[in-house]
């Protein structure tokens, strides 16, 4: 009765990390509980039906779950909660999706009333075909994803035993010359491959691309990689050529500018979701080859239409990669049901402790609005308020002070509003990358930054994702997309790549005090605070005084 775990009535589990059994306990509860928060002392896991079903899918049974809770719990676990867990897990597997030799894809049950219940649902009716026998009903193969999604919502998740197609084989090997997959990356690849499909969650800078490459080397088949934008597509291509046996010619880019289809094709979400005359003209990409593996980069940004396409791809292996499975639209469960359950997850701090990502010092600098700005802010229209406070004059002074302080280091200044960025660029004498900057120009500036030819780069949100800036050690965020938590995580990720000289990374967020900027900042920081990245809060005056 002195375990590290406390089971709460709302089905959260509190794990005391300093406890001697904490690591054992973490290993045992990880299969069925989602790590929700990981601050310094007590980590919070949540037990959800989805998590329990994923655990069932991975071969854990209710008894193991209950044993784990009872064994490590500090206080007696409420009986009702244990019963609830057992009942929830028992719901999984009553329905199975299998391949029938004569009827193709079928939904069958071991518990007839359950089948009757789900068949009564209006949302299931259009997805199923003829009733083959009292316990079996045919399912249109194209609705495999759809029906899984709906059944999950109905609370009767189907066990998908229909298997995967191997796809067109294509030799891919990792070229591990002078480097090797890190242990956690290997573990992630292994977990994914063992589970069939699913999502791998790793912090920014922890090498998600390599997990993708590792998985491709496992699959040894043609691969479709979906990424957020062209820059990111180029990055993937570069990395794959460097890390695997693939050559430039084997990798195609399918974007707004180029439409190449090769054994390994990298496509952007944007081109896929382009709609002309009510249809998606680029959908054929999915059918253009017999893909054996589909990789979704930054799965938390997956646009809604891609969900729909993905539903049709249930027979192919799917790998989702992300740093934060936090979607501002709350569609995490769609990710789980269509791409697959979370197969690997590592707390940021743990990977930092292993030295794979740089330790970061996060500081929130609070600036005061000037009196005239306060008046303008008070009278501004609601939709204009954020802009007013986010672009306050004082922020410029503070940013300049920070840049001065870290002179000589690679510094990124990130913001939302172009006017503000242009002004900052002017004052800091630094180039600005924004939406209208051409790709060629962007890559040129990135290269210059990488080479250390320029120290300070001002970027808008176009640079949010997948650009690799190895030597950035300081990031200054002057404004953001309202309260987006994953944006904050991505931006912090920009400075977390391990530094050659073991430098500490610095992340500054400049926030206007007593305005909605501060509220948004609190919301944005919550994810990182819960990942153990505690922000220090400073007053601008303090910073400016130190600097003077």
């Amino acid at each position, binding site marked *: *009765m002195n375990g590290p775990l406390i089971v709460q009535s709302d089905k959260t589990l509190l794990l005391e990390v300093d406890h001697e059994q904490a690591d054992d306990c973490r290993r045992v509860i990880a299969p069925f509980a989602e790590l929700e*928060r990981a601050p*310094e*002392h*007590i980590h919070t896991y949540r037990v959800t039906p989805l998590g329990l079903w994923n655990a069932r899918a991975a071969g854990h049974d209710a008894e193991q779950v209950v044993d784990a809770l009872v064994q490590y*719990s*500090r*206080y*007696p676990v409420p*009986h009702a909660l244990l019963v609830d867990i057992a009942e929830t897990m028992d719901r999984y597997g009553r329905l199975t999706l299998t391949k029938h030799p004569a009827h193709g894809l079928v939904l069958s049950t071991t518990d007839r009333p359950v089948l009757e219940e789900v068949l009564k649902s209006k949302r299931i009716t259009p997805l199923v075909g003829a009733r083959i026998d009292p316990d079996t009903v045919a399912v249109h193969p194209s609705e495999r994803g759809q029906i899984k999604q709906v059944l999950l919502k109905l609370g009767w998740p189907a066990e998908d035993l229909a298997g995967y197609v191997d796809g067109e084989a294509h030799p891919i090997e990792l070229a591990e010359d002078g480097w090797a997959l890190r242990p956690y990356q290997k573990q992630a690849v292994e977990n994914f491959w063992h589970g069939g499909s699913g999502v791998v969650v790793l912090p920014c800078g922890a090498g998600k691309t390599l997990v993708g490459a590792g998985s491709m080397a496992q699959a040894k088949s043609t691969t479709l990689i979906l990424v957020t934008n062209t820059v990111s597509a180029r990055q993937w291509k570069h990395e794959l050529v460097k890390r695997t046996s693939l050559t430039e010619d084997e990798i195609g880019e399918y974007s707004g500018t180029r439409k190449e289809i090769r054994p390994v094709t990298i496509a952007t979400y944007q081109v896929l979701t382009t709609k002309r005359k009510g249809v998606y003209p680029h959908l054929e990409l999915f059918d253009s080859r017999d893909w054996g593996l589909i990789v979704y980069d930054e799965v938390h940004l997956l646009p809604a239409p891609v969900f729909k396409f993905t539903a049709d791809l249930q027979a192919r292996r799917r790998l989702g990669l992300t740093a934060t499975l936090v979607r501002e639209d709350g569609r995490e469960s769609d990710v789980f049901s269509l791409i697959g359950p979370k197969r690997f997850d590592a707390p940021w701090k743990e990977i930092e402790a292993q030295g794979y990502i740089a330790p970061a010092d996060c500081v929130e600098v609070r600036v005061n609005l000037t009196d005239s700005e306060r008046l303008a802010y008070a009278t501004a229209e609601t939709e204009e308020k954020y802009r007013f406070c986010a672009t306050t004059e004082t922020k410029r002074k503070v940013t300049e002070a920070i840049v001065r302080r870290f002179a000589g280091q690679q510094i990124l200044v990130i913001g939302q509003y172009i006017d503000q960025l242009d002004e900052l660029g002017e004052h800091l004498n630094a180039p600005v990358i924004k939406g209208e900057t051409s790709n060629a120009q962007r890559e040129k500036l990135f290269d210059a930054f990488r080479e250390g030819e320029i120290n300070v780069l001002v970027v808008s949100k176009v640079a949010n994702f997948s650009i690799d800036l190895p030597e950035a050690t300081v990031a200054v965020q002057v404004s953001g997309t309202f309260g987006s938590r994953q944006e904050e995580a991505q931006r912090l990720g920009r400075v977390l790549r391990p530094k050659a000289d073991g430098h500490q990374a610095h992340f500054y967020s400049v926030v206007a005090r007593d305005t909605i900027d501060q509220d948004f900042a609190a919301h944005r920081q919550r994810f990182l605070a819960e990942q153990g990245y505690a922000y220090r809060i400073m007053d601008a005056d303090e910073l400016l005084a130190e600097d003077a």
Partner: protein
Amino acid sequence: MSDEKTAAAPRSLAEALRARDDASLAALLRSRPDLITPVPSDLTQLATRAGTRASVVRALERLDRFALQTAEALAVAGDPATYEELLGLIAGDAQDPPVAAALPRAVATLREQALVWGGDDRLRLVRTARELLAPTPQHPSPTGLGPTVREATSGMSPGRIQEIVTTAGLPSTHDSVSAVDSLTSLFTDRRRMAALLAGAPADSLDVLGRLVWGPPYGQVTPDPAPRLRWLLDRGLLLPTAPGTVVLPREVALHLREGRAHRAPEPVPPAVEAAAAHPPQVVDATAAGQAHTALATVEELLKDWDEGGPNVLRAGGLSVRDLKRTAVALDVSEPVAAFWVELAYAAGLLASDGEADERYAATPAYDEWLERPPAERWALLAETWLTATRTPGLVGGRDAKDRALSALGPGLDRSAAPEVRHRVLTLLAGLPEGGAPSAESVLARLRWERPLRGPERAPDEDDLRGRLARWTLSEAELLGVTGRGALSAHGRALLGPRPPAKAGVKARARTTAATPAASVPTGPEGAGDKLPVHKLHRAPETSRAGTEAQPQPQQPRPDLEPGPLSPSEQAVASAAAARLLAPLLPEPLDHVLLQADLTAVAPGPLRRPLADTLGVLADVESKGGATVYRFTPGSVRRALDAGRTASDLHAFLAAHSRTPVPQPLAYLIDDVARRHGHLRVGAASAYVRCDDDALLNEILADKRSAGLRLRRLAPTVLATQADPATLLEGLRAMGYAPAAESAEGDVLIARADSHRTPPRTAPEPVPDGPPAPDATLLAAAIRAIRAGDLASTAPRKPTTAQVAGGELPRTSSAETLATMQAAVLTGEALWIGYVNAEGAASQRVIAPIRVEGGFVTAYDHTADEVRTYPLHRVTGVAELADDQI
């Protein structure tokens, strides 16, 4: 019960009672306490009362299933019946050993309860019980048996009877009575009957097969099919009404091999452990839940601290308030109702009795809070165990279709404490850590107290069944049980166990393993003890028949199953509290503060700490630990409560095991910086003046003290006095102030006329009623005349009776006895009767039924059947024969 010792067999229940010793009479009165309220004057009166319908019904309803089955079998047997005849009916021709073994106990129970009297050669069921249990077409018996041949042929023509007798292969007789006798003896003779049925067509046997276990009635067409004709011709089916036939009792019994019941249930179904947990786990789980129970009650009353919900006009809590409470406690509504009712029953909350009535915590709650946790729990548990209030009913509707609300009226169920105690006792009978399935507990309770009448669907629970289910779930909520098994402290609640505790447990364990065999062998097994009869030694032990019984019944004084007396319960609760105390988690004095602005209390907190933290932060998650989140709002709340920022820093530093995270410290300072920056107050008038020297002068003037002026700014004074008073005051001081409108304009003072809000003129109040008009007068006169006629007319028929003289007067016992005698004899009586208005009259009645304090009788005076309350009958007298 020592009737057999006396030479002469008793001729009536009264005589049988007279022959019983004191202990056996005490047993009767203990199990049927309604017989001594009020105390009867003699044994005749006791016997009369024991024979009343209400009392017999009550006694039958408290029989266990096998005793009831035995009584039902007696009701279809001859009157009197021999023990062997009864044994045949209950155990069948095959003489099932377990049934035969259990029968002496059942007969003893019925004897003890004065439902059966007479020796084993002449067992008699009390007449009322026989009437209640014997099958009639309106009330089919659970046995599914029909009427006897004699009853079924009573209206049949002698010719038809002779035909039947002849077809059945019997010699014809001279009269119907002997014909029926010979038919009956054929039907009851197994061998001859078998021979008769051997010749039956197969489809006729099918018909019999369908009717044999009841209901025994069937429909026939006017022209029956040959398979029915064959049966009708031999009297194997007898017509009862046009188109209806019945299977006579004797035939059915033959087909059933003598059994009155398809499935006699001689032994109680065992309550078996569906799961077994280690006792430590059970105790720990229960203790955890007990802790939650305390926390929940506290949280509930804290939630209602600043004005609880309103009391509905009809009493109770509105559905909306219950919902809100459920959300606040994060439980379902029925569970919320349980906590609310529990706190109410424990006296921790009540209505405040104000004009605007609300629920609030009582002073007893504050005392309760001061007590150690285990004692607090003991109060709740004891309250729950003994309360008649039944939270499970909340949300349902009563007989008048009114919604039953929590804390409202109509929630008391007198059976609740007994059922709760019984269920826990059954749990206590299992080995430690054994959790039974709810179904086995319910099955056992249904056996112990079956419902009379037609069988119900098994899933439909009666009140006792529902009470039992609620008991199981409530016991879990309260931490009396853990994981469905009774905890050690729950066991202690039931009072001290017999000294040989280990023996009981061991015995109970074997009981669970082999239920059927262990009932007679393990009478001390708590799980199998029978609540209905106690302290009786089976009188059959002296009988030759029972000598073969291997296990005579033993008295079991140590296993009184009934709820404890208040003092015993207090002792038991204290014992339970002592057992629970070490299991409850120790309150902590520290929390863990984290940089994501949360604080985690890894266990229950000491009260002052919990109170302060509850103000300073919002509770995010509850359970074994508590997670608090600090927000600007929560910090502001703490500042509003009079804390200062430095207070809060000191508080957190003192109670945190880890350094206070910088963001939290910053948050507190940041909120404190702005706290109180704006000030709000109430003022009803102000003085403003651009010249602050003038305002200084006013403030300095002693005469202004009464105006209670306060300087808000150099040029503004405020006051609580109203503007008119302020103007007056300043004018009196010699200034010339001008009144200002809300917009700041100077008001022109002019004498204004004061007006009330719109009012209606008073209605005139005349001295007497208004003068009647002609229509009304005519109607009134007509009514008076009609009434007059009515009051004079009925005198004639009653004059003869009134002439008889005074009202008869007898004692109430005598009245009752005479009435009951008259029911049996069918005689008419002369009674004195006082009606509801107090008018006395005399009536001649022929009583038909006496029950429940009423006599239903044919009233010769009124020439119709009427019902009179017995307490209004002044007395009775028998009539001379010539009076009717």
